[in-house]
C-alpha cells in the first residue's frame, strides 16, 4: 500500500524525483518516432522512419546478433562454470572457501575502466583483441562473479537435509546433485541466467576496449553512433532494447520474483 504517513509536499517531491530518474529512459520512446533528421526534443514531425532506418542498418543489426550470441554463450559458460564452483565453495568448507569466494568475486570490486585497460594490455599481446574468444573471456570476468554470488547465496539457503534425505534413500552424490540440488537451485539459476545475460548484453566499458572493426557489440555500436551522429536512430534501437529487457524482467519476475533477484 501507499505510505499514508507521507505529507503531500513530500509526495510531490518524490514524484518529481521519479520523473528525473525515468526521464531519459521514457524520452527515447517519443524520440524514436521522430520524423526529424537530427536529434531534437520535442520533434516537430512524427514518423516510423528511424525504425525503417534501423532495419536498413546492417551494422546495427549484426551488432545486435553479436551481442545476443555473445550474451547467450557467456551466460551458458557462466552457469556451467559457476554452478560447480558455487557447489564446492558452499559445500566444502575445508579448502579456504571464503578466500576463494572473495577471490572469484573480486573483479566486481574493480572499476570497469581499470579492468578493461588491464585486459586490453594482456589481450593485445596475445592477439585476442577484436576476437570472439577475447570478448567471451572479457565478459566472463564480470559475469562469473555475479553468477557465483547469486548461486552461492541460493545454495547456502538450501535445506541441506533434502540432499541428505536423498542420499539416505540411496542416491549417489552425482544423482543427489542432479535430482535434488539442481532443481532446488532453480530460482537462483534463473536469476543468475538473467543477470549474466543482461550484464553481458549491456556491458560497454570493457567491451569498448576489446571490440574491433570486425566485431562490435550493440552497446559499443550505440556508443560509437552517439559519438559520431546525432540522429534518432539510437532511440529506435533503445525502444526495442527496452522491450527486450522488459520481456526478460517479466520472465524472471514470473519465475522467481524480481525484487529477490536484484534487491538483496
Amino acid at each position, binding site marked *: *500500500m501507499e*505510505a499514508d*504517513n507521507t505529507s503531500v509536499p*513530500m*509526495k510531490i*517531491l*518524490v514524484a518529481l*524525483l521519479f520523473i*528525473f*530518474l*525515468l*526521464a*531519459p*529512459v521514457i*524520452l*527515447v520512446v517519443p524520440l524514436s518516432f521522430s520524423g526529424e533528421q537530427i*536529434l*531534437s*526534443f520535442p520533434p516537430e514531425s512524427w514518423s516510423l522512419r528511424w525504425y525503417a532506418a534501423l532495419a536498413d542498418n546492417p551494422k546495427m543489426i549484426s551488432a545486435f546478433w553479436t551481442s545476443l550470441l555473445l550474451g547467450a554463450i557467456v551466460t551458458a559458460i557462466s552457469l*556451467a562454470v559457476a554452478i560447480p*564452483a558455487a557447489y*564446492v565453495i558452499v*559445500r*566444502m*568448507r*575445508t579448502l579456504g572457501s571464503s578466500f*576463494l569466494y572473495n*577471490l*572469484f568475486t573480486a*573483479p566486481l570490486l*574493480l*572499476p*570497469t*575502466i*581499470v*579492468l578493461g*585497460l*588491464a585486459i586490453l*594490455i*594482456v589481450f593485445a599481446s596475445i592477439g585476442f583483441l577484436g576476437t570472439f574468444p577475447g570478448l567471451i*573471456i572479457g565478459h*566472463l*570476468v564480470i559475469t*562469473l562473479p555475479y553468477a557465483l554470488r547469486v548461486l552461492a547465496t541460493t545454495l547456502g539457503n538450501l535445506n541441506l537435509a533434502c540432499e541428505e534425505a536423498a542420499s539416505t534413500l540411496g542416491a549417489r552424490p552425482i544423482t543427489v546433485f542432479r535430482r535434488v540440488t539442481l532443481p532446488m537451485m532453480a530460482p537462483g539459476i534463473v536469476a543468475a541466467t538473467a543477470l549474466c545475460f*543482461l550484464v553481458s548484453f*549491456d556491458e*560497454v*566499458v570493457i567491451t569498448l576496449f576489446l571490440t574491433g572493426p570486425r566485431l562490435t557489440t550493440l552497446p559499443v555500436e*550505440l*556508443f560509437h553512433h552517439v559519438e559520431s551522429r*546525432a540522429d534518432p536512430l*539510437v*532511440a529506435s534501437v*533503445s525502444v526495442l*532494447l527496452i522491450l527486450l529487457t522488459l520481456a526478460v*524482467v517479466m520472465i524472471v519476475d514470473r519465475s522467481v520474483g*524480481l*525484487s529477490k533477484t*536484484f*534487491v538483496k
Partner: protein
Amino acid sequence: MTAITASAPPAAPRLALGRTGTAIALLLPIALINAIGFILPVLNLLRMSFNEALAGGGVRETVTFENWTGLFGDSFYVELILNSITVSLSITLATLVVSYPIALYLHRSTGRWRTFLTVLVISPLLTSAVVRTYGWIALLADQGPIVSGIAALGFAPPRLMFNTTGVIIGLTEILMPYMILSLLAGFGRLDPRVEEAAMSLGAPPIKTFWRVILPLTVPGIALGCLLCFVLAVSSFITPKLLGGGRVFLLATEIYDQAIVTLNWPLAATLSMLVLIIFGAALAVYARILRAID
C-alpha cells in the same frame, strides 16, 4: 565441563578429503578464467605502471618511477586528479540528495505499490548507460525542453551540456538506482515505530528527521555514497558524451591514453591511482561504520 559440546557442533565437511581432487577439478575453470581475465591482467597493469613509454605507443620494459613522479609533478595531472575527486564527490552528494526521499518513501511503502516502485527504480539500471546519456543529450541541449523552459520563464538560459554541469546531471541520474538500492538496504534498522515514538515524545517532523531518522540511516548513506563515488570516479561513457571535450576526468584520461595516445604506462599509472582512491574511499567507509557502532 569441557566435554560438553556446544549446542551446534561445526557442520561436517560435505566432501571427504579423498574428494579434494574432484573439488579442484570443479574449481579449475573458474580459477582459470579468474587468472587469465583478472589476476594476470591486474598484476600486469601494476607492472606496466613502472615501464617506460616510448613515442608512438611503444613500451620499454624497465623499472622506473617516472610515471608516478611525473604524475604528481605535473600541475595538469594534479588538477585532473583533484578535479576528478571533486566532480565525483559532487555527483555523490547530488545523487544522495535526490535519492534519499525516494528511498525513504519506498521504505515506508508496502505491498504491490512498493513492488511497482521498486521495479521503477530498477528499470533504468537495466537500460544501457549509453541510451540514458543519449536521452540526456536530447534533454539538455540548448534547444532542448529544459533550457527552453527556463528561458521561457524569463531567466537567462543556462548551459547544461558540454560542461561539468551536464556530466554531473547525467551521472547523478545514472547512479540514482545504485544509491536508492543501497539506501534501502541500509534502512533495515529504521522501524516506522521509532518515528512514531519520537513524535509521541513531542518531536516535530523536522526534528524527528534530524534526530532519529537520519542517524539511523547513516549505514545506508555510507554504503550508497561509497558505491556512487567509486562508480563516478570510474565512469567514462557519460563524461565522454556529455563533457564537450573539456571535462577531463581520470576515467576519460585513462581511455584516451589507452586508446588514442597509446601511452599504456601512463594509463596504467592512472588506473592504479583510481584503485588507490578507491581504497581510500573504502577506508573512509570502514571508519564511518566503526564510528557508528
